């Protein structure tokens, strides 16, 4: 068993808004080990971005409330002071964001921005930091790095900009890298390159990776373990094989079923889970997926605990159905997914 880098226990994040208290993340627990890539999947509003941003301390604000712990190298990120967090951010845990053109400063040269990251934590000269930045740019596959370090973000293509962000994030060899939908804003061919880049670099340094995405194709490509989030809660957790081949939660079935398949008859309409995610200000009683679940029954009024139902202790889910029932219910015409007629 690999060394555990990050341990999150019962994380809760809520925001006070005009309409009431918005519970963005409720009772999320998971771990990230050395060399492991954990993918967090879910719809928009499921709480996946808030979860990872909270790990970086970027959700702290006067109207935010936190509970639970997130231990990284012995320090609890949730309750750490601002000063302590500033020392950790970028050095032990780093993040790359979704849209690199807006995530990079438009008025600073690219090499200087990477050097800024280095100099934020190490006392070296600007020239030395710039040299390291150029070397990093070369390592992430930016050609002609020394000349290009003097360019500005708007002079790069999307894929190159994301490589810059990766270089910046990995510059101090953090223990954990968080990637928040880094390929969503890129086209598919570049996406593949960037994923390769991330995979290669993190393998070299055994970095733990948290990869937030809504794209199951990406998950299948890079994840070792998968966390499925819905309405601020973890609803299923397991290895990538377990999630794709033996999913236990009806929401996961819905996600898998909504991916268009080239090997089957094309449906008349694209399959989708009917309904919409619940309001996080007034979350429903019991299982959050119940209003949209085609297999809901009376027990679902009570919130199921996240627990393993199968002998395999690493595969957890939040559903009252027994594994035998699930096996029957999840197959629709030979594939895992939404029930007939659930596609609207």
């Amino acid at each position: 068993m690999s060394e555990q880098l990050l341990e999150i226990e019962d994380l809760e994040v809520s925001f006070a808004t005009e309409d009431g208290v918005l519970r963005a993340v409720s009772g999320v627990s998971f771990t990230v080990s050395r060399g492991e890539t954990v993918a967090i999947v879910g719809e928009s509003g499921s709480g996946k971005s808030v979860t990872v941003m909270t790990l970086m301390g970027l959700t702290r604000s006067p109207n935010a409330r936190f509970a639970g712990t997130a231990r990284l190298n012995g320090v609890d990120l949730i309750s750490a002071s601002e000063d302590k967090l500033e020392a950790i951010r970028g050095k032990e845990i780093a993040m790359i964001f979704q849209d690199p053109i807006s995530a990079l400063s438009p008025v600073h040269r690219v090499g200087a921005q990477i050097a800024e990251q280095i100099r934020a934590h190490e006392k070296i000269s600007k020239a030395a930091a710039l040299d390291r930045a150029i070397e990093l740019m070369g390592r992430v596959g930016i050609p002609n790095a020394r000349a290009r370090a003097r360019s500005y973000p708007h002079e790069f293509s999307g894929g190159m900009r994301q490589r810059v962000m990766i270089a910046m994030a990995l510059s101090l060899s953090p223990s954990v890298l968080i990637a928040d939908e880094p390929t969503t804003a890129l086209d598919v061919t570049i996406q593949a390159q960037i994923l390769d880049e991330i995979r290669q670099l993190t393998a070299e340094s055994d970095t733990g990776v948290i990869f937030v995405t809504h794209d199951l194709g990406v998950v299948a490509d890079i994840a070792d373990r998968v966390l499925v989030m819905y309405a601020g809660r973890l609803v299923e957790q397991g290895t990538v094989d377990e999630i794709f081949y033996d999913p236990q939660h009806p929401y996961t079935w819905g996600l898998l079923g909504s991916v268009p398949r080239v090997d089957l008859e094309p449906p008349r309409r694209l399959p989708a889970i009917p309904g919409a995610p619940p309001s996080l200000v007034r979350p429903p009683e019991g299982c959050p997926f119940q209003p949209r679940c085609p297999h809901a029954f009376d027990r679902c009024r009570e919130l199921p605990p996240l627990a393993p139902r199968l002998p395999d202790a690493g595969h957890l889910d939040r559903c009252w159905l027994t594994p035998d029932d699930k096996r029957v219910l999840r197959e629709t015409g030979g594939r895992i997914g939404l029930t007939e007629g659930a596609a609207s």
Partner: protein
Amino acid sequence: MTGFITRRLASAVLLLFATSVVVFGIFEVIPSYNPARAIAGRAATAATVAEISQKFGFDKPVWIQYGNTMKLIFTGQIIDYQDNLNVVSQFVHRFSVTLSLVVPAAIIWMAVAILLGSISALRAGGWLDRGLMVAAITGVSIPVFLLAAALLYLFAFRLPWFPNTGYTPFGTDPAQWAYHLVLPWLSIAVLSIGFYSRVLRSNALDVINQDFVRTARAKGLTERQVFTRHVLRNALMPIVTLFGLDFATLLGGAALVTETVFNLPGIGQYEATAIGQLDVPPIMVGAMFTAFFVVLFSALSDVVYALLDPRIRITG
């Protein structure tokens, strides 16, 4: 770059020309305008007025009068009607006074506005922010003549902390020079501090929510580094343009109320008197003088903006 300079020079010439025509034209339209009578004075006879009219060429057609005036301006021979002084030389001599007034005031107001605007942005929504913004709106709303008179009354008369009025050149006595200018500097600064701090606050709040600021925090930079290197840097850019225009008009004499109240012999005071007496030559030279600075500073602020924002490049 040469293309830029050429185009700006061409537009400068056009603007100066247009300004001169418009100002000249205004006086042709004013019904009570009779410069010959004004020069002749109260007790003049019709014959004197006619004689003056002929001497100054007021009986000639409008465009000839315009031509003559412009010729006199550019040969530096134009004289004002009221005191018979050479207008151009007056401007030259009085410019140092206006500079003494405007440049330190600008430094003061920009420094204070950036400080207050930053504090407001960082403490947005709090009591300090609200208090500063109320003060800013008050500063913007107070008419300059009221503020100048009030400062003079309170701090020169009631509390004899500052001298009454008047100007001491820097060369004569630097300490006295500054001493006489403190209240005038405040008169100009208060209004501008109010305005610029609000603009900076608004810009900073826009920038602070942008993604790259979040990235800067994610890098582990301190809050102060995030604010100065990323937020302020971007928030100040539009202010450069605003400041350029503001400063240009002030150099041209826009601080005329302050100069008049504090009896500073600057360009503004000269222009104010001329306007009151409908004395065309100083008004025309003043208008063109201001127009010249406006063009110069608007070109300069474009260049500075391009230096600050690499996404913008001056096209040649």
